[in-house]
Structures are given as C-alpha cells and as structure tokens.
C-alpha cells in the first residue's frame, strides 16, 4: 500500500537533496564540457571548501560570511592554480593522464586535509534557525532548504552566464570545438582556467551546503561519489542533464530509503543510484541529455 503523504515527504526531500547534488555535478560537467578533463576530485574539492569554511569559523574565530568569502576566493584560486600548474602541461596527452592526476590529487587532499584542520568532525552551523519549516503535509528541513535554494540560485546565475554573457558564449564555443574556437581568436586555455575557477565556486557553495548538513571531516568528500550516477544519467556534457540527473538521484535515493530499506534491512539508498547508472549505461550511454558522439575518422 502506497502512503501518499509519506511518498510526498520522500520526494520533496529528495528534490532538495537532488538540487544539492546537481550543484556539485555541475562543477564536474562544466570541466568536462569545456576542457574534456574528467575530475575525479570533485568530492575532495567540496571537502576542501568545507574545511576552509569550518577552519575559518571554528579555528580562526572568523564571522560566518568571512569564512564563506575566503572559501569562495580560495577555491577559485585553487581551481586556477590546478589548471595552470598541473593540468595545462597535460593538454594533448591521453585522457587517462588527466584522470590519474585528479585521482592522485583527490588522495592527497583527503590525506593532507586532516594534517591542517584536524581529524575530528567540525560542525558548520548555518546562521539560521533549526526549526523545520512545515508546509501543510510537507516538512522541510531548513539545512536542505537553504542548500537547495543556494543550488537553484547558482544554477540560474550560471545558466544566464553560459547562455547570454559574452564569456559564456565563448566558453560554449570552446566546449563545442576547440580548434574552431582558436581560429576565432579565442584563447582556449583562458577558458579552461575559467572552467576550473567555476568548479571552484561550485565546490565552495557545495562545501557550505553539504558541510552544514553532514559536518566537516574527510567523509565529506564522499558526496563526490554521487556525482557519477548524476552525470551518467543526465549526460556527461549537459548542464540541464546535471540538474535533472541530480533530481533523479536525490528522489530515487529517498524512495529507496523509505520503501526498500525497511524491507531488506537498509543499505539500498547508497547503491540504488548506481543501479540506475548501470542500466542507463546499457540502454543510453550518453545519458538523457548528453550528445551522442559520432566519431569521424
């Protein structure tokens, strides 16, 4: 028997969490689209940003807003620096080189972060009330709501940037065809750096939202694992795909937790999105909105 009230709660909460997945998946998609690099360290970026915010507030005693500003600036600088120092020399190398570089970076970040920030879990309290917001039958946890609104805000701003702004249009040109973009006088490397800088912004916002929800320690990096089902479902190179994929993963996860976990004793929440991902790879490997790549020889 399906309980509609219960389902509604699961779905609305799934949507909120899903938007928070969309946000960090966008960082991954953006980098892949613009630079063809696959960033296996997206979760660690989020973790690093969480550490910076928590470190500023808890260890340095800074006000909340300052922690966020420092994290934003720091993550953009980190994105630029990473592109310039590590990734640019790898341009033209096989894609596996970039993948290995980001996997290596992920491990280094996970291992090194506790050296600076300590191993214990730090709470990252948002400056809002903890009271759940009740809307008729639906109860919205404020942390998730703020995270979802933050994600929505960024997704909207980013969509405008990508579709309308001069820089965004040039970035789309780079994503579409690097060679032709160069012939138009577009400095392609500059847009690679911008893509990584934007991934930094995404990570800072993700670190804030997810850090507030889960607390900040090395396990925060695990949210990055959810990026893969999201981007495979939506399509690796689709911004809209990142949003829709995030929503699907959020909702599926919650439905699995609500309906399947009680039947089997738990645990399906964590792998249900991966089942969907594998099915998607079998029937439509480029995802819902991804471009079907036609290789011309």
């Amino acid at each position, binding site marked *: 028997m399906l309980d509609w009230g219960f389902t509604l709660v699961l779905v609305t909460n799934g949507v909120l969490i899903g938007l928070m997945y969309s946000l960090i998946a966008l960082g991954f998609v953006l980098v892949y689209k613009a630079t063809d690099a696959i960033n296996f360290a997206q979760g660690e970026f989020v973790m690093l940003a969480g550490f910076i915010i928590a470190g500023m507030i808890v260890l340095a005693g800074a006000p909340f807003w300052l922690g966020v500003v420092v994290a934003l600036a720091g993550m953009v600088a980190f994105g630029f620096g990473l592109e310039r120092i590590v990734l640019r020399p790898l341009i033209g190398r096989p894609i596996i080189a970039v993948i290995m570089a980001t996997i290596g970076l992920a491990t280094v970040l996970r291992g090194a972060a506790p050296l600076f920030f300590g191993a214990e879990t730090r709470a990252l309290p948002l400056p809002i009330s903890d009271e759940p917001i009740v809307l008729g039958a639906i109860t919205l946890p404020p942390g998730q709501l703020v995270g979802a609104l933050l994600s929505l805000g960024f997704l909207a701003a980013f969509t405008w940037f990508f579709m309308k*702004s*001069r*820089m965004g*249009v*040039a970035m*789309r*040109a780079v994503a*579409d*065809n690097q*060679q*032709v*973009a*160069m*012939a*138009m*006088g*577009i*400095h*392609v490397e500059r847009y690679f750096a911008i893509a990584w800088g934007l991934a930094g912004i995404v990570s800072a916002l993700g670190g804030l939202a997810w850090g507030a929800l889960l607390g900040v320690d090395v396990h925060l990096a695990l949210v990055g694992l959810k990026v893969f089902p999201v981007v495979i479902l939506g399509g690796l190179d689709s911004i809209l795909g990142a949003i829709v994929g995030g929503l699907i993963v959020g909702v599926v996860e919650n439905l699995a937790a609500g309906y399947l976990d009680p039947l089997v004793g738990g645990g399906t929440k964590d792998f249900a999105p991966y089942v969907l991902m594998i099915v998607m790879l079998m029937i439509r490997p480029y995802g819902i909105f991804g471009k079907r790549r036609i290789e011309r020889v």
Partner: protein
Amino acid sequence: MAAGAAQLRVEGVAKQFGGVTAVDEVSLEVQQGEILSVIGPNGAGKTSLLNMVSGFYRPDRGRIAFEGEDITNLPPSRIAERGIARTFQNIALFKGMTVLDNLMLGRHVRMKSGVFASFVYWGLAQKEEMAHREKVEDLIEFLKLEDLRKQPTGALSYGLQKRVELGRALALEPKALLLDEPMGGMNQEEKEDMARYVLDVNEERGTTIILIEHDMGVVMDISKRVVVLDRGRVIAAGEPKSVQANPEVIRAYLGTKHAIRKAA
C-alpha cells in the same frame, strides 16, 4: 610595411608527419589585396600549408611572416588577432548555436572591453555589444541570411552552412582570409554564389584571399595568381593562363581524378 613588400611571406616551410613529408620547402608571397589560389592533387599539402599559416601546425623548418612580423610559432588565436581568418574544409560551425551566435563569435577578437570590465561597466559593454551587432547585421545582409538569424546552424543546408562559415570568418574583419575548399560539395548555382561573395569581399573590403579549391573553372575565373603544389612542393606559380599551360602541372594532374578543365 614597406611599399611593394608582400603582406604574407612564406619562406621554405616544411612539415613532416611521421616520416611522410606533407610540405617540403614551400616558399610563396602574397600581395595585399590579391586572390591567390593554391591548387594541386589530393595530398599535395595544400591544407597542411594553410594550417601552418593559421597556426594549427608548427612548421618543422622555415618561417612565416605577416605584415613583416614573424608569426611562425604563434598559436592560432594570436594569428586570428593579427587579422588572418580562415574557414575549414569540413564545415566547422558551432552546431548547437544559432547563425547569429556563430557570427557574433566571429567578433570575439574585436571585442575590446575585457571580461571583468564588462561586468563593471555594464553600460559600456552593452554599447559595445550593439556596435558589434550592427557589424554582424551588415554581414547578414551581405550574405542574405536575414531569415536565418535565429536558426541553429546544424539545421541549415550544406551550401548555407558554408555561407555562414564565410560570414563568421568575415566577422573577424580579417586582412587576409584563408578559404579551404569553400565550394567543395556545392552545386553549380551555390558555387557561383560563393565565387561572387569571395570576389565582392575582395573588391569591396580589399581583403586578401588565399583559396584552396578543386573546381578549376572557379579557380581560373577569380584568381589573380595560382600556385600549384604537388607532393609538398611548389611546381608552378603564376597567372592562371600560364599555369594552365605548364607541362609540369598537366603531368601532376594526369592520373588523378582532378583533370584540369579549360576555364570557360
């Protein structure tokens, strides 16, 4: 630039790909405002030469100078900034984007206010945007693309896509325009239209044109000079008539599918 000096000077450039010599010690000069065609059998090295001039390949040897300045090792984006635009043999439009977006992207090198300035001085950037839009509108009118502004380029016919690609290159306001088989795959009417546009650009804007083309009728009609490549080397150069009569050229073309037809 001294009077009479060549606008584009290619000196002894060579390019090998894994032991295969694509371009072998090619030298040529192009004068400001002329239409130069580069012809030759398939695999003669025409596109490789074009790729070196536009910065996509780096020559193994030799030197390329544009308006007296060395551009041999500049990346494509810097060469585009200096005023050399190109089209590609296979149509290379930004497919998901509209005709207008493609043409506006051609204005990229002409956009002065930087990225951050455009955020700070919003009004100024808007004003600049309008000026660019006007330039693009002129091109749309010139190329008769009025009804297609908002069409995604992927949906256009082959001939129209080639025309949009020409428009995008023109949007750079180039001093020299490199066209790699602009009439390839076109029917006779489309070819005539394209030839007309190329001539108009050359006459009205004084743009230097370097053309790779297989249709000898078109080449002989519109070129001021013709350079013939065969197996990476220049085997003849000069006015269309003299090149056509050159026994070396006839020999190079014998046994290939592109026989020289007498220009009408």
